[in-house]
């Protein structure tokens, strides 16, 4: 920052009452260069650390949210509220075809996938296991979620008699591609529902709980077998952007009948939302500790400053400078040292983040299972966000102002005659 700029900033046009505090505050920084650079360095370090880690967190959350919603749940789901309470087969959404057309026409909606969901007994030969049968519209699912693409062996659904089994379920049943699988369940009216399907593919999502029970079949044959008409249990919606999902939820809630429950992804996957919140809180505590330590060092620095310059403050008081103006001068010093620290810290953090946004951080072999479990890829990519760039500078600006103010308040009670004697 140039002296000319400071002079310009310090002049109040017309009044002639300038603000010498700004210029003196800036120059005072350089009376003890080592202390200034140490203080600014501490601030830069904390801003760099906090902004970089926050960018990593934001990137990680974005990936977790996108991966989790893209896998199976979608960004928004619609169900009959009673189905959400008890998961009873008969609590369906009626007139599903018209509803789907209406939802597809809503701005911000990319795709809608209808699902019929039930639990049934799956048998191959002598072996039987409980399975979660999903009746799906494969074309709509392919536009909406990713799990249907995770075929480890065989192919996806094409014909009305096709079935895709979770890899673990298939192993438990002893089923292979081409085998027949018999489905037995309870139909809508309480009667027995039965289907005979051909295993055409094995699905491996990497989620053990899913792979152990999941079985996919085309929606129409499942509806027919289980006594459903134009009904579904769930409508899975992919929004144009996960960030737009909450506004889409509001729109759909207003436009659709009250008998339907429209849920954002964070209500569908509360454990993910809670995991992110817990991680965010942990991060905030860590950031708070880092920034508090730096602020304490700034307090220490300004205590030293005030004690070292007591005589000078006494002189300023003696020649008629009001205490508030002297305090203001110290606040400017704190502002400038913080500005230097924040500028350095943010420059480094943004530089590092931009680079890592390109190359990512490889999590390593050991982390791959863990990463998959939490819907994360094997590389972490940070994301620049306003929050990551604003929080630590803002906290540091407030913190350093307070850090300077605490010792500076001593000036209010400073008697010029004592201060001039250096007491």
């Amino acid at each position, binding site marked *: 920052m140039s002296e000319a700029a400071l002079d310009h900033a310090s*002049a109040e046009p017309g*009044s*002639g*009452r*300038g603000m*010498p505090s700004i210029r*003196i505050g800036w*120059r*005072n920084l*350089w*009376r003890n260069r080592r202390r200034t650079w140490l203080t600014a360095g501490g601030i830069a370090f904390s801003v760099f650390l906090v902004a970089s880690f926050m960018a990593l967190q934001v990137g990680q959350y974005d990936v977790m949210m996108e991966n989790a919603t893209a896998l199976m749940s979608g960004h928004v789901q619609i169900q009959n509220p009673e189905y959400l309470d008890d998961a009873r087969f008969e609590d369906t959404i009626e007139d599903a075809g018209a509803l789907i057309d209406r939802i597809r026409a809503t701005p911000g909606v990319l795709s809608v996938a209808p699902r019929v969901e039930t639990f049934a007994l799956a048998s191959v030969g002598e072996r039987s296991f409980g399975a979660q049968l999903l009746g799906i519209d494969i074309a709509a699912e392919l536009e909406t979620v990713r799990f249907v693409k995770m075929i480890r062996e065989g192919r996806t659904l094409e014909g009305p008699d096709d079935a895709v089994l979770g890899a673990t379920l298939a192993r438990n049943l002893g089923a292979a591609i081409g085998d027949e699988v018999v489905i037995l369940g309870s139909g809508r009216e309480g009667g027995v529902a039965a289907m005979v399907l051909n295993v055409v593919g094995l699905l491996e999502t990497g989620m053990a709980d899913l792979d152990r029970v999941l079985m996919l079949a085309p929606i129409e044959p499942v509806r027919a077998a289980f006594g459903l008409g134009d009904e579904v249990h769930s409508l899975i919606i992919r929004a144009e952007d996960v960030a737009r999902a909450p506004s889409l939820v509001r729109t759909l809630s207003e436009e659709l009948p009250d008998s339907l429950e429209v849920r954002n992804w964070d209500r569908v996957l509360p454990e993910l939302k809670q995991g992110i919140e817990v991680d965010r809180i942990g991060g905030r505590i860590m950031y708070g500790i880092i920034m508090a330590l730096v602020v304490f060092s700034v307090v220490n620095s300004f205590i030293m400053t005030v004690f070292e310059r007591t*005589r*000078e403050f006494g*002189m*300023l*008081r*003696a*020649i*008629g*400078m*009001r*205490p508030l*103006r002297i305090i203001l001068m110290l606040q400017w010093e704190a502002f400038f040292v913080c500005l230097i620290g924040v500028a350095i810290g943010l420059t480094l953090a943004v530089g590092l983040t931009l680079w890592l946004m390109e190359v990512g951080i490889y999590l390593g072999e050991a982390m791959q299972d863990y990463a998959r479990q939490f819907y994360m890829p094997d590389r972490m990519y940070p994301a620049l966000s306003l929050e990551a760039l604003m929080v630590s500078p803002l906290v540091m600006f407030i913190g350093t102002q307070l850090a300077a103010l605490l010792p500076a308040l001593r000036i209010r009670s400073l*008697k*010029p*005659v004592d201060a*001039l004697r250096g007491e």
Partner: protein
Amino acid sequence: MSDPVVRCRSISRTYQDDSVPVRALVNVDFDVDRGEFVSLAGPSGSGKSTLLNVIGGLDRPDEGTVEVDGVSLNELSESALSDLRLRKMGFVFQAYNLIPVLSALENVEFIMQLQGIPAQERHERARAMLDELGLSGMSDRRPGEMSGGQQQRVAVARAVVTHPVLLLADEPSANLDSRTTEELLKLLQRLNEDHGVTIVTATHDPLVMSYAKRQVRLRDGEIIEDSARQAA
């Protein structure tokens, strides 16, 4: 008819020094007329600096009243005292006490900036004052780049550039050699005689006393000799 710039009546001031009360001023009556050059002399602990500080509003008396240019200091708040010092007084300290991060010109301008004088005017006045005090080549130098005598002259320039009614100088020659002291005293004498600046200085330097028109001697907090009274 006298025209007192300073009017002190029954001033007493007692300090606590390690819980032992020290009577710095005892029932002092003291006036300074406009245009006077007064030296307060006496040994260490005689009360000369305390009297100077009380007149300057830097210290408050325990008893008695102080008026400067018709304003009673006793009733003023600390902020009002600051404003009074800014508007009516100039200070020259033993240790120069310039602002180390400002140049000579900026130091002189600074006090006018506090007074709200427009930039152009204060710049011209500061430069003219430095020229008058023989510091025209020093205006861009910071205090650390000047000799003691030069710094003290800048301090004088800062003190008188606002045309104060009263210039207070506490041991102004304490850190100067005799030649520089004489230069400073000639400067103060010129300001007093040519510009009518009222000067009160606390000193134990006989050379300083010799330049003052009026010598006041203190001992143990009391005025024991005043050349003005003797003349009367």
